[in-house]
């Protein structure tokens, strides 16, 4: 089984009659961090939604560990070791911190284990166990979301715009944790609009423009194309 853990093959997808992705090919090899970069509206989040099963593609196939998962519900994929932290805080704002962690156990991990990892890694969350998650600061909310990615111990982790609305220092800290998760062998697909925040962590970078992957390569080799992708050169 040396198939990539996650592979998208010529995916077309969209919302209603508006097609957003026009044939996306993307491979996430085992134990590597793939950064999906590109300007706003390029289709990065849609790509992630297809990968985690929230949106069914209109054409193309999604392979998880080499197996076609067409039509498989997102919760089934989640229980099979595919953790997704969606854009704009992957938390339930009206649930307390502890209740949020309890939801993380739905994929099959015990609550005690989740709490141990979450509070061990983020002591600030331990202090705020009974606080409603929506009233946490942006950084703490993102930590809570990441705690799930850490505690559930996934094979594949999909992250969307971890940096959104956060101060640089916090983003740095969060990506430090992502790097840790990556080093332990989890395959990670990171969507980021602001390339600089993630290039240091990534093994492979893919640039997406207008619903297609424009280029894929090592971060160093992709740098020259970044500005043209963002500026429309």
């Amino acid at each position: 089984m040396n198939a990539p853990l996650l592979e998208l093959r010529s995916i077309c997808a969209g919302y209603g009659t508006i097609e957003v992705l026009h044939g996306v090919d993307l491979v996430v090899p085992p134990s590597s961090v793939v950064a999906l970069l590109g300007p706003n509206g390029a289709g990065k989040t849609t790509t992630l939604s297809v990968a985690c099963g929230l949106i069914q593609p209109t054409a193309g196939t999604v392979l998880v560990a080499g197996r076609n998962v067409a039509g498989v519900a997102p919760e089934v994929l989640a229980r099979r070791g595919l953790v997704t932290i969606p854009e704009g805080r992957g938390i339930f704002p009206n649930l307390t911190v502890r209740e949020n962690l309890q939801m993380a156990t739905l994929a099959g991990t015990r609550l005690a284990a989740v709490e141990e990892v979450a509070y061990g890694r983020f002591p600030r969350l331990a202090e705020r166990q009974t606080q409603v998650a929506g009233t946490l600061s942006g950084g703490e909310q993102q930590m809570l979301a990441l705690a799930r990615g850490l505690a559930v111990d996934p094979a594949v982790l999909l992250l969307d715009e971890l940096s959104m609305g956060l101060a640089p220092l916090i983003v740095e800290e969060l990506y430090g944790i992502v790097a840790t998760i990556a080093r332990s062998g989890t395959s990670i697909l990171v969507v980021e609009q602001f390339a600089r925040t993630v290039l240091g962590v990534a093994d492979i970078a893919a640039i997406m423009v207008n619903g297609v992957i424009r280029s894929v390569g090592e971060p160093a080799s992709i740098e020259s194309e970044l500005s043209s992708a963002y500026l429309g050169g």
Partner: protein
Amino acid sequence: MNDVAPVLAVEGLSVRFGGHLAVSDVSIQVHAGRITGLIGPNGAGKTTTFNAICGVTPLSAGRVRLSGEDLGRLSTHQRARRGVGRTFQRLEVFSSLTVADNVRVGLEIRRSWSRRRPPAPQFLAGATDSSLTADDEVDLIVTRIGLADSADVPVGALSTGSARKVELGRALAARPRVLLLDEPASGLDDRETGDLGVLLGELAAAGLGVLLVEHDVALVMRVCADLSVLNFGQVIASGTPTEVQSNRAVLDAYLGGDEALRSTAPIVESELGASG
């Protein structure tokens, strides 16, 4: 730097969602005949600011004035009738209507109330109030936004980029005094973005005030006369594009201030500097 009274003045605007302060003490001025840019990272509060200006989201503090009149107590449609027009970041087209009918609805809604208000400045070349029928005006706008070929196509079948043009055309059909554009260039290709820049320039030259939220920094630098940078719901810098570009705080906020990753900074700096 401007002695003329602004057409739109946002003063000390704050918006609170529950305990979360999404926008805090934001002040922006938009002048007739000028394009003001509003940039900042995702989640900085740009769309919330738009929603507060046009009355979709209630503001918790501050004032919004249009030509000196306080809009604070007015509902969304009343503000629109005073001359606030906008487009949406998440598309809000009438997807079951054709392109022409989307524009026509904008025009017809305007005609249902505009008799009580003096006509707004003309900003489309050839659009003179008296001689123009509704059909002519719709044709004119549809042509100007570059969708003459798909005038009879339902908007639901169009690409995101074209749908954004429809939103722009629809807003223009209402003849606003000030136009709030929320990422009008996302989904457009390079040529279309260029055309959009030209159109925005023309609109401003005809006397319209434009507030532009856009991620395409090159476009912003090219067309904006003034620029404000929003981060964490606050204006962290404002001035001419050149002034803003050289502002270190902006660079850190917009690009992430991580020392370890600074190696890639030149790329992104060139992104800001591309057209400066």
